[in-house]
């Protein structure tokens, strides 16, 4: 079986979070607080800690099984199948949400005259092809974009810092701890719990024992990048950040150096599209593995086409506009993800462990 290294796992997890983190998270956080928005970015670490705890339970008792396979062991055929269906629905809905975020972003930022369903078709086709190639290829593509991001991201950061001001952050902690907590709910429970996507790939990890530490490293790096990004966004745009759908895009658009260096948002849009395609492929890998386990199949490749078709269709059916996506993420996703990828797996691992211990 093809396996991936720790480095690839950490990179896949980082880009999975930052794929949407560099687009929607600063704007979502600013809905609740502006001057203390930087503190909400740390919420990613709480989500990462929850996922690392769940992953520690998984690799401690079942280092060679995926989440669905453990569920089959814990609840038997019927119960395991029911959880598999629930998990596949979770994967499809998450993929549909990310896909809709991507197509809406591309339409608003660069292709206003292109139908959104066409953009999502292309995005899902690219993600499906990556998924078809397998987890090792997805890991290598994640490695490939690191040098590009290492050049482009610091360049954009340093160029936009010219208009940065500390004034929007004063007085510190004046918005109150409740506002800071409410601002960190989405980073914690919506994006932070996305680290659990790795639970379906456990058999494909070269060193499953290090998975909790890898999730911890990925969450720390993602949280650091998010805090810097949110701080930069609020420092450059100030209070109006609250009313912008894509504040980071506006920060990049504000860059002007002399007469020739401007409109660097092209670089940013390209980066967002690439990272979101990688995020889609990571989640699709997980969902396809779940479908494979649900059907007790040996091969995963046959699942790619039906899964891609379904997520494309659901993304168009479920979300009528971008407001629906925001509403779904703010009002349903935190509890939905907490139930599906933390509470359910915890019950599954305890039940499977109890059944195994009783048989021995």
């Amino acid at each position, binding site marked *: 079986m093809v396996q991936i290294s720790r480095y690839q796992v950490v990179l896949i997890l980082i880009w999975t979070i930052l794929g949407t983190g560099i687009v929607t998270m600063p704007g979502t956080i600013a809905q609740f607080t502006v001057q203390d928005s930087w503190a909400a970015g740390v919420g990613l670490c709480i989500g990462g800690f929850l996922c690392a705890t769940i992953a520690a339970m998984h690799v401690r008792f079942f280092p060679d099984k995926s989440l669905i396979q453990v569920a089959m062991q814990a609840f038997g055929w019927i119960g395991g199948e029911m959880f598999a269906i629930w998990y596949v629905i979770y994967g499809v809905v998450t993929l549909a949400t990310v896909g809709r975020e991507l197509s809406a972003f591309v339409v608003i930022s660069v292709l206003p005259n292109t139908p959104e369903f066409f953009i999502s078709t292309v995005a899902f086709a690219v993600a499906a092809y990556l998924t078809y190639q397998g987890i090792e290829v997805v890991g290598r593509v994640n490695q490939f974009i690191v040098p590009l991001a290492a050049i482009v991201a610091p360049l954009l950061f340093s160029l936009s810092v010219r208009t940065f001001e500390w004034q929007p952050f004063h007085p510190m902690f004046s918005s109150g701890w409740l506002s800071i907590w409410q601002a960190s709910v989405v980073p914690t429970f919506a994006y932070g719990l996305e680290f659990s996507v790795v639970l379906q790939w456990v058999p494909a990890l070269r060193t499953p024992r290090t998975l909790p530490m890898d999730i911890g490293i990925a969450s720390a790096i993602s949280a650091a990048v998010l805090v810097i990004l949110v701080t930069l966004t609020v420092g450059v745009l100030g209070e109006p950040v609250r009313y912008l759908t894509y504040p980071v895009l506006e920060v990049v658009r504000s860059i002007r150096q002399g007469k020739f260096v401007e409109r660097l948002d092209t670089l940013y849009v390209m980066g967002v599209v690439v990272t979101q395609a990688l995020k889609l492929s990571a989640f699709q890998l997980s969902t396809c593995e779940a479908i494979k386990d649900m059907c007790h199949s040996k091969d995963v490749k046959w699942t790619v086409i039906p899964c891609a078709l*379904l997520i494309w*269709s659901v993304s*168009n059916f479920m979300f009528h506009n971008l407001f629906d996506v925001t509403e779904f993420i703010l009002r349903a996703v935190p*509890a939905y993800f907490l139930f599906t990828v933390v509470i359910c797996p915890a019950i599954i691992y305890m039940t499977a462990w109890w059944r195994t211990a009783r048989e021995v």
Partner: protein
Amino acid sequence: MWAVLWAIVGAVMDFRHWMPRRMRERVAWAVFVGIAIFLAMASDLHWWPQFDLVRTFVFVFGKPTAWLYIGKFQHGGA
């Protein structure tokens, strides 16, 4: 000539691996594609305009999510 072309395309696209083989896989394949086509038609032909999947999710998970927020909140709707 068509057979050669088809063989080349088949080798490049690797069709055999895209297709389900066992009965269980075929059923899952048909169910997924069927739901996808059905939802695409429902979306395009505006079937059940009153039914809103987002509202359904908010109805089911809205209250526990509100607990996570510790109380009511209002967002700007950006």
